[in-house]
């Protein structure tokens, strides 16, 4: 006889935003899951009627962890609308700001958000209380290293913010990225100060962040085989390597049904059946979308819409970018994969689909991606110039439309704007968390994290640690 019970976790903590998870557990395993995005502000309607240039400031307020990505996407959408190109030095400066914030975000995520899933902090708030059975497996010495690194990482992520601020004015919510390019041509002193700080961050990623991720993975091998979900991946492209936007550090692409596909934005649709939005707006492309909230809609359970790509629910984020590009692993990572995990791997796919699409696989991909960013920041530091123009002047067009893609640290980001009478007429945003943490679509298909929760062990209903672990591995 099987026993079914329903468990609600609300709030899911150590994430950005308001999220509730409701799982049905049978015989100690999750058999069904629902995720509820519990907060709504409505940036689409707030943007309407504004000066299109203000989008880079207003839309940064969507997320205090990845404002740089929103500033970029909104600026690029207007640059497309106005038909202008950002000067070479402006692209490099933007990459350096975005790169530093990736490092900030990934380090914050692993240590300060997800970290306590594996590490026991000091015996005081906010580290205590916690679930009675937290399933902590690190020995005392390793745990102590984890706590030390938690504290050190507070300084390192702050240092990353200083790097962004050197080029972007302040963080969070920078001033330095706006339509046209970068607001300031970095001075020699700023480049030097950035590089100085970068060395500290680089050392931390190589000597602390990467090793501890592999170490923790080796102690939680079963979580490297948990939460496979759909094993789909979407990347829209980020960190342009040329001024035309043809080549990226992470190139766009899609992966589903076990196959690679080229990325085609026209295949994106957003569904509303289970979302608190008007059904009449369901199934549309972003350029035809309208945002009509309806918090009393029967059957709906989330403020998140359900985006689909060619009908598929897609996972986004570092593991998806790395998977789509089959990115190579760091030298340290290769060594540790062999020593600690017993795997010979040169590239991410060598770790196997089952591992990469797991709790630990997603963490590991994020750490490896941090190393990729470190590698490229080094290169961009050699390319940035104190003499090169970073900003192209332009007139806001009377009318037009444009959309742009980038990748926030936590996944795909799309901004679309339509301009009429020099004002925003329609604005649409499709951020990463919508892809990962969405509810079911009109066809009844679960969202990617909902699906990843299926089969996850919850042996003790009063300590459902693995539910939070799955969700946090996506960094929503």
């Amino acid at each position, binding site marked *: 006889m099987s026993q079914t019970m329903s468990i609600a976790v*609300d*709030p899911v*903590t*150590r994430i*950005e935003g*308001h999220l*509730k998870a409701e799982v049905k557990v049978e015989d100690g395993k999750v058999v069904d899951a629902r995720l*509820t995005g*519990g*907060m709504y*502000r*409505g940036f689409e309607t*707030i*943007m*309407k009627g*504004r*000066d299109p*240039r*203000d989008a880079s*400031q*207003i839309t940064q*307020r969507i*997320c*205090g*962890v990845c404002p740089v990505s929103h500033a970029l996407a909104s600026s690029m959408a207007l640059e497309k609308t106005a038909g202008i190109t950002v000067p070479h030095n402006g692209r490099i400066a933007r990459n350096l700001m975005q790169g530093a914030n990736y490092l900030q975000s990934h380090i*914050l995520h692993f240590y*300060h*958000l997800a970290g*306590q899933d594996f590490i026991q902090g000091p015996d*005081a*708030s*906010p*580290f205590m*209380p*916690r679930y009675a059975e937290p399933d902590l497996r690190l020995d005392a010495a390793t745990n102590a290293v984890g706590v030390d690194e938690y504290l050190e990482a*507070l300084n390192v*992520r*702050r*240092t990353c*913010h*200083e790097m962004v*601020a*050197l080029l972007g*004015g*302040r963080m*969070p*919510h*920078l*001033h330095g990225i*706006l339509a046209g*390019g970068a*607001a*300031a*041509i970095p001075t020699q*002193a700023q480049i030097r*100060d950035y590089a100085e700080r970068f060395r500290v961050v680089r050392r931390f990623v190589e000597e602390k962040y990467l090793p501890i991720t592999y170490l923790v993975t080796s102690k939680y091998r079963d979580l490297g085989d948990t939460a496979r979900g759909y094993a789909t991946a979407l990347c829209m492209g980020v960190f342009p390597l040329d001024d035309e936007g043809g080549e990226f550090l992470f190139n766009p692409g899609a992966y589903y049904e076990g196959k690679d596909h080229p990325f085609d934005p026209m295949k994106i649709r957003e569904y509303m059946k289970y979302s608190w939005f008007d059904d009449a707006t369901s199934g549309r492309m972003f350029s035809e979308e309208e945002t009509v909230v309806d918090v009393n809609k029967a059957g709906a359970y989330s403020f998140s819409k359900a985006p689909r790509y060619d009908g598929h629910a897609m996972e986004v984020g570092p593991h998806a970018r790395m998977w789509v590009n089959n990115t190579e692993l760091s030298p340290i990572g290769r060594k540790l994969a062999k020593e600690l995990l017993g795997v010979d791997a040169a590239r991410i796919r060598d770790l196997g689909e089952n591992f990469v699409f797991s709790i630990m696989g997603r963490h590991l991909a994020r750490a490896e991606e941090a190393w990729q960013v470190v590698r490229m920041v080094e290169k961009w530091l050699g390319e940035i110039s104190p003499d090169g*123009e*970073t*900003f192209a*002047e332009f007139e806001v067009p009377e009318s037009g439309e444009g959309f742009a893609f980038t990748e926030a640290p936590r996944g795909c980001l799309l901004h679309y704007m339509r301009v009429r009478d020099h004002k925003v007429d329609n604005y649409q945003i499709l951020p990463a968390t919508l892809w990962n943490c969405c509810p079911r679509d009109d066809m009844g298909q679960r969202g990617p994290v909902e699906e990843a929760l299926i089969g996850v062990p919850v042996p003790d209903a009063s300590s459902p640690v693995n539910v939070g672990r799955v969700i946090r591995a996506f960094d929503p």
Partner: protein
Amino acid sequence: MRSGRKVTRSGAFGRRSRAKAHAARAGAKPCGTHSAISTILQQRPFFNDWQISPGYGIYAPLSGLELKIHAEARPFHGPDAAKTTGLQCRPNGIFCKEQSMSLSRRDFVKLCTGTAAGYGVSRMFHPAVREALAGTLTGELPPVFWLQGQGCTGCSVSILNSMHPAIAEVLLKIISLDFHPTIMADEGAPAIEFMRRRARENDGGFFIVVEGAVSDLEGGRYCVIGESGHEEITMSSMLKELAPHAAAVLAVGACAAYGGVSAARGAVTGAMGVGAFFGKHGIATPVVNIPGCPPHPDWMVGTLLVALDAVKRDGLEKGLASVVALLDEDGRPKPFYGANTHENCPYLYLFDEGVFSEKMTDKSGCRYDLGCKGPFAMCDSPVRRWNGRVNWCVENAVCIGCVQPDFPDGQSPFYEQR
């Protein structure tokens, strides 16, 4: 060298009187700082050898009769800088005139706007004061609950950047952060129930920090913050439940203070600031607004420390009254928000000389024509600077007036002068 456009006298005066009028409307008193700097620069030409750039070099913050001068010693300023100027060297590479390290709360106003601005907030307090903060209210670290309404978590991320004191010190030695959705270990109903228990145990003696706006439309369902005993808990219901029992509420960020972007034109959720929400629901707990989008970490940590310190010394009622006495008419602590941004801007002399940048990347002029809202804003960012003091808003681009009650609608378009 300057490529900024030099405008005719009348043009410059036109802007100046406009900006001055706005500054006056924003509650600023012209302070003479700018002329003091000019005088010093004239009298002490050696400052010129320091390659003092308008962005980080010398500045003279508003401090009433006492003018204090700092210059950040960049490596290229040379080792003799201290000797030549008679300024004292500080371990963090900052030179300043000797200052008293024994600071009482009475000095707070002066210090926040004065010399301590460059050091974060810890130097505002004598170490003994900081020690005394531990155990403020109940013999334990004072309980703080951080609630998130309709916001972006940017205020939380900003406070993580606190340097003096470092955020780890705040968390481990100064407060007991019993609820914070972004960093606490616990989750779900147990986390909510723990907060409720701590509130009962410390009735009247805990602090609530609110980040994000609050809405009571549709039963508050635009922002659900948790569930306990199968009951949905909205941000508005949680605030109504806990706030009457709190010693005080800190509304951090533009959203919590005044509604901010969450309540901007076009928003349909009925989002509002904490003060407005309390007014509507008859909650009498004192609210301290710490606006900014996000606020500087010093503004948040500094205000929290001052409040804890005041309560420790003078007891709850008198202590809080002295904190409330520090607030301006928009509910902001004057020590941080008492000075007009424009009046303290290092580019004010360019404004006065009528040299205005016409292009975003041209940093040789005042940014007024690019849309700078400094004349309408009240914050100490030009003096305090951001992120380890490496930069600030206007040095990089323009001020967007993010500390003002009418941000963003009244401060935008951001890249046009209004």
